[in-house]
């Protein structure tokens, strides 16, 4: 049966070539979108390393002033002043806020392998871990015991720990910065599962969390992370702003709950996918129309052949099965070719981690399912129409 079908398909190869090319392209498009969506789903389920519920971010807009012009005492004043508000549970400082598109990257040198490792970096204060709800899996967060130490404390995520100190326990190990002029040494004091500042759709990357200490360091944090009591209404923003203005009236403050920032950042990430999906849905609909039309024409043209089959004893169900099976065979051929081309992507690692085997197999299964469904739906009516022909009529068809 299969051999017979293959022969029939091969006989009409030039027409089928164009049709398979069309199915191939449609398959590639559906595959791309399925892979994109599955990757996002995979990332979404991985830990982001912090909680952020009931935490608000305050960006201090200080205008055009240099770091050295910001007094170190201001941070203590801000913290004390904010903690006086009954809604505020904890106050921490950070170089930038999570759930923004901000990135800060640098390169560190591993003392073990001597290799330079590029990484993301997040500088935050002693109380940030509790303000942001960062969960450590080993060691401890920064604290006063780090004051006056020669090596600055650092917390790594597991990915960074694995590339700096492969095969060793990272806690207590040291590594250095790669700046030419001022060589800084860091000591690993803690370990987090992961840290992804841009939220659940950010691709995991090496991350180093360093300590912000205004009295000894030169850098200055420009974001306050405020943990408030659960259920604090958005209107608290006004009271918060008023209190901040009491501390420094010449700065302005941009206040937003992290949950709101999370929602808008997720939307920002998803909108391109949604736009592309809508366009692709239109294209697939178009392919469906085209396939339907072509199959209809094909069955019309093959009426004499069908009549002959009926006349020598094939049942209506046989004809029906033949039309549908031929279409599925054609789709399978196109998709196998497509898969052979697409499998090169994870094999060569051209897309890196974004297209891992899990995503590839999932996307291949989803897109194959979609194309099979499409082929089946498009061939149902033309197949039914062909099977209904009576053999006498079909034989006489001109």
């Amino acid at each position, binding site marked *: 049966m299969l051999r017979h079908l293959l022969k029939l398909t091969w006989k009409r190869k030039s*027409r089928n070539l*164009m*049709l398979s*090319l*069309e199915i191939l*392209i*449609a398959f590639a*498009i559906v595959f791309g979108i399925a892979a994109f969506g599955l990757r996002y789903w995979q990332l979404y389920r991985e830990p982001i390393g912090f909680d952020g519920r009931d935490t608000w971010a305050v960006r201090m807009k200080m*205008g*055009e002033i240099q770091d050295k012009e910001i007094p170190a005492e201001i941070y203590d004043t801000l913290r004390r002043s904010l903690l006086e508000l009954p809604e505020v549970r904890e106050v921490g400082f950070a170089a930038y806020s999570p759930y923004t598109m901000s990135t800060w990257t640098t390169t560190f040198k591993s003392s073990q392998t001597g290799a330079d490792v590029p990484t993301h970096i997040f500088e935050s204060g002693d109380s940030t871990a509790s303000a942001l709800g960062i969960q450590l899996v080993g060691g401890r967060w920064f604290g006063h015991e780090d004051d006056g130490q020669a090596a600055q404390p650092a917390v790594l995520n597991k990915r960074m720990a694995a590339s700096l100190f492969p095969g060793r326990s990272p806690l207590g190990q040291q590594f250095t910065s790669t700046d030419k002029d001022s060589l800084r040494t860091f000591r690993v004091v803690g370990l987090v599962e992961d840290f992804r500042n841009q939220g659940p759709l950010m691709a995991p990357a090496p991350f180093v969390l360093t300590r912000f200490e205004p009295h000894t360091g030169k850098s200055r944090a420009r974001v306050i992370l405020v943990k408030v009591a659960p259920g604090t209404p*958005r*209107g608290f*923003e*006004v009271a918060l*702003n008023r209190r901040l*203005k009491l501390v420094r*009236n*010449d700065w*302005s*403050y*941009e*206040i937003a709950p992290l949950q709101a920032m999370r929602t808008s950042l997720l939307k920002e990430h998803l*909108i391109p996918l949604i736009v592309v999906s809508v*366009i692709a849905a*239109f*294209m697939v*609909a*178009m*392919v469906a*129309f*085209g396939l*339907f*039309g*072509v199959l209809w*024409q*094909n069955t*019309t*043209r093959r009426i004499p052949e069908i009549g002959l089959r009926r006349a020598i004893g094939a049942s209506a169900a046989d004809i029906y099965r033949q039309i549908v099976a031929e279409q599925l065979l054609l789709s399978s051929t196109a998709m196998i070719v497509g898969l052979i081309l697409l499998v090169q992507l994870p094999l060569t690692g051209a897309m890196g981690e974004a297209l891992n085997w899990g995503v590839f197999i999932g996307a291949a299964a989803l897109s194959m399912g979609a194309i099979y469904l499409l082929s089946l739906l498009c061939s149902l009516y033309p197949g039914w129409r062909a099977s209904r022909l009576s053999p006498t009529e079909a034989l006489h068809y*001109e």
Partner: protein
Amino acid sequence: MLRNYLLTAWKVFMRRKLFTAINLVCIVLTLVVLMVVTALLETAFWPSGVEGKSERFLQVYSMRSESADHRTVRTELLGFKTIDKYLKPMQGVERVSAFTTPASVSVYQGDRVSELQMRRVDADYWRILDFRLLAGRLPDADDDSVSRFVAVINATTARKLFGDAAAVGQKISISGQMFEVIGVVEDVIHMNAYADVWAPLYTFPSGTWRDELTGSFAAMLLAKQPSDLPRIQREVERVAKTFVTEDPHEYATTTFWADSKLDLVARELLGNKERADSGGTTLLAWIIIAMLLFMLLPALNLVNLNTGRILERSSEIGVRKAFGATSRQLAGQLVVENVLLCLAGGLIGLACTRVVLWWLETAQLIPYLKVGLNPSVFACGMLLAFVFGLLSGLIPAWKMSRLDPVHALKGAA
């Protein structure tokens, strides 16, 4: 001859209404996507309305300073002093406007907080851009002379802040400064015009902005006529060479470019920050290639549909061949038929595009979006339809012209 073609085409289309409809739906879907993209690009790069003078002005958005050994590079927005000292004295430029990029500010009204985008702009800004005033007035020389704290807001912001009450004359507190609303303008999305609130430059909280070489400013240079633009671009390039940073030891050379909107985007996307050529034409070429690639799948689809159709018409083709029609004539006829169908699809697509754009505008996915379907978008759409028709008509036409008249006459290809 063409009349015959048209008549045949009409007959063929009407004979198989379902297939004509399927064909049309495919064409319309493709063209709607392409035309929406064209309309959006047109609004972004060659807008009409508020920035309607775009073909007469250039903008300078960033400047790049580099150390002598190329190790340290700094890219920043301009400071007011840079515009005042280097760009304003340039010869042969009608106006130079200094304005800030939008910064988000909070407006407090009792317990309500509104996050708005605010620009600070000079007087020339209002003369280069043609804002449509809905109520009140724009800042004038009188405001400048006494440094009055005035603000212009757009229609959406007026509704958001004051509801149905008249906005003009109201006082608002923007980041702790009190402003009087003197005018309401319509909403705009364009590159230089987009903002919710506009205030004069002198309302900056501190006076240091006058002496900064880098800051938060951009500049627009209005030429007397469009043909002056290349000269102005060269002039700006020359002026940039004379630029001295506040720290000439650290940053030895500085470049900035006067760009059209397309150049500006191309420079950002393609990273041509240190060359005079922004790569605008390359970007356009890429867009066109991407559009053609996008047409590939629908075109294949149409090829398949059309191939089926001609085989149905094989007896007609056989007769024509037997009476001496050449292959080329037959192929021409089918291409004409296909192009006609595509042009019809283009017209329907245009109407659908209008609906999609209207939906995009009301859905506010992009704030203040307003896209017009002007004659150039229409022409682009028709051109796209024509290209699409050719693309999808050629292969079936070639196949049809190869039919053997003997077999074709019998109706079995």
